[in-house]
């Protein structure tokens, strides 16, 4: 196990474009595997050592310690939807600024002006949403 990990990490260190972009992701795959293995392992091992006593109260869905009221599958307010939509829109904005941040040092002032224009246009949208009361809950 451990030698394999070291071998793979060594591969990553000598990653070149010719190898394709796959090898660089091996540490991430390892992280993913380990973070999956720990909780699954802990729960599996715990199964053999714990005592299982089921009671009505224990099997109840947890709602902040209060007895559950009604069905969980209830209709939710449209306000959540508006918030989610605004989040989506500004999320898209963020993803466009991500590449700018990476080449920021090379583009210098020019890039800064570009990004400021980009953001300035969106600030109009933000101001509009604010004044329309889209950010208020009531």
């Amino acid at each position, binding site marked *: 196990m451990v030698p394999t990990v070291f071998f793979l990490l060594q591969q990553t260190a000598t990653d070149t474009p010719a190898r394709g972009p796959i090898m660089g992701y091996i540490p991430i795959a390892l992280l993913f595997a380990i973070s999956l293995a720990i909780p699954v392992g802990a729960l599996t091992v715990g199964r053999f050592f714990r005592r299982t006593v089921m009671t009505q109260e224990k099997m109840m869905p947890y709602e902040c310690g209060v007895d559950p009221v009604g069905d969980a599958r209830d209709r939710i307010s449209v306000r959540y939807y508006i918030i989610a939509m605004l989040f989506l829109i500004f999320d898209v904005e963020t993803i466009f600024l991500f590449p700018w941040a990476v080449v920021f040092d*090379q*583009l210098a002032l*020019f890039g800064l002006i570009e990004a400021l224009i980009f953001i300035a*246009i969106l600030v*109009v*949208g933000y*101001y*509009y949403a604010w*004044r*329309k009361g889209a950010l208020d809950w009531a």
Partner: protein
Amino acid sequence: MLPLLVELPPLPTLRDTAFIMPEIILTLFAGAALVLDVALPRSKKHLTAYFSLIGLAFVAIALAQQVAMTASLLPISAFYGMLFIDGLSVVFRFVFIVAAAFSILYSIKYLEFEREQRGEYYALILFSTLGMMFVATSGDLIALFVSFELMSLSVYVLVGYFKRDKRSNEAAMKYFLTGIFSSALMLYGLSLVYGVTGHTNLGLISETIAGYVQGGTAESGDPRLLLMVALVLVAAGLLFKIAAVPFHMWAPDAYEGAPTTVTAFMSVGPKAGAYVLLARMLLFALAPMREMENLPGWAALLAVVAVLTMTVGNLAAVTQDNVKRLLAYSSIAHAGYILLGIVSGTDMGYQGVAFHIMTYTLMNTGVFAIIIALHRQGVIGENLNDLNGLFSRAPSAAVLMLIFILGLAGIPSTAGFVGKFFLFGSLIQSGKPWLTYIAIIAVLNAVVAFYYYARFARAMFLNAPSENIADASPLLLAPSVRITLTLSAIAVLFFGIYPQPLINVADIVAQSITTVYAQSSGIALR
């Protein structure tokens, strides 16, 4: 394949920025209209409309600076070939500005009446116009798609602008879902074009495709098939927007359900934008695929669509009683006529396309302006019967309406006739027998169209006023609207009798289409 940039290229300069001056001004005004909307009290919201009109005037002034550039045969390219300015782009941007200005002017009273006076409405029209203007100036797939979406997205919202009106909601839903689906198809087609040619620049795409069509080299296979798939997908997306058969189903519902002022706008502005994009794609980027060896080119495909479009549009219009639905089918039929000009592939055909779109903008907004004026609380005024006896109630409005309707019908001595003459004539002039047959079908179609346009005239002049609309309240015609309508009507008649000035303008467009294609290699990246 054009390599993606590894090193930074020379950065755009103020020279590039100067070329998008009209668009920059429009963006500023559109954004300011939004801010104005939330800043103004409810009673003053209509000021946004006047503000938007002033903005459009500034845009027109800025655009006038570019008129001189159309004199050079090569389009001027800026922003790394992302943008180019030629006759087509300059002339059509003026058309868009006029369409937007008319729509705003006709909307002011209507929205007041419906108690929906809000600045967003005008901002949305300005944003849509911005999209159209960029469609007309972009020379690159990505810029074209983003601006096309900007244009469409605003209209989706505008169609559903009356939130409390069920019909408006239904129309917006139908239009949005089908529209977004067709945009996705088009985007898939554009991605295939990029995949095959390796370029997003229209000039370079055209050059690459020309190479494939002339001799599909053996070792690289035959990419023409994949290009055909791309062509069909792109054409489907665009034909949807201009409501050509078989992608026309949304049009009657959307036209009927949308607020009438929005119907007026979408039937001229965004539609003209889609024509421009169609022309850019078919007559420039995919121009080498007009006719191909062993494979059907787009000319044959488009000819079938054009014949179906005008026939279905005209036949369906005959049975309609709702004016907005009728005009929707009439606009479908007109889309068929305009496609003929692109099919013909002659200078005369391109002139016809430009001429007809310009005059159609005047005539169609004119007709809608009067329908908007008929609008009353409780009485919607959208039925053909509601026009009954209009001449005795409001003689001047009836006469104006008659001029626009005759123009749409293409009666000689109106501008509508000249447009149709160029479009149909170009088919015969092309000298191909199969196009001559299509010209005959087109003329027969125009005869059918006379019938339903004549119903307007009969209702207005011969029928007695209906009982239910006999209220004596005056039409909602503001003096500014009345003057604009009169000027439009005079223009329709003037260009019908002496079309030369407008033909010269249309010729600028036709010249730019033919020369740009001939010198596509000249429009490389700056």
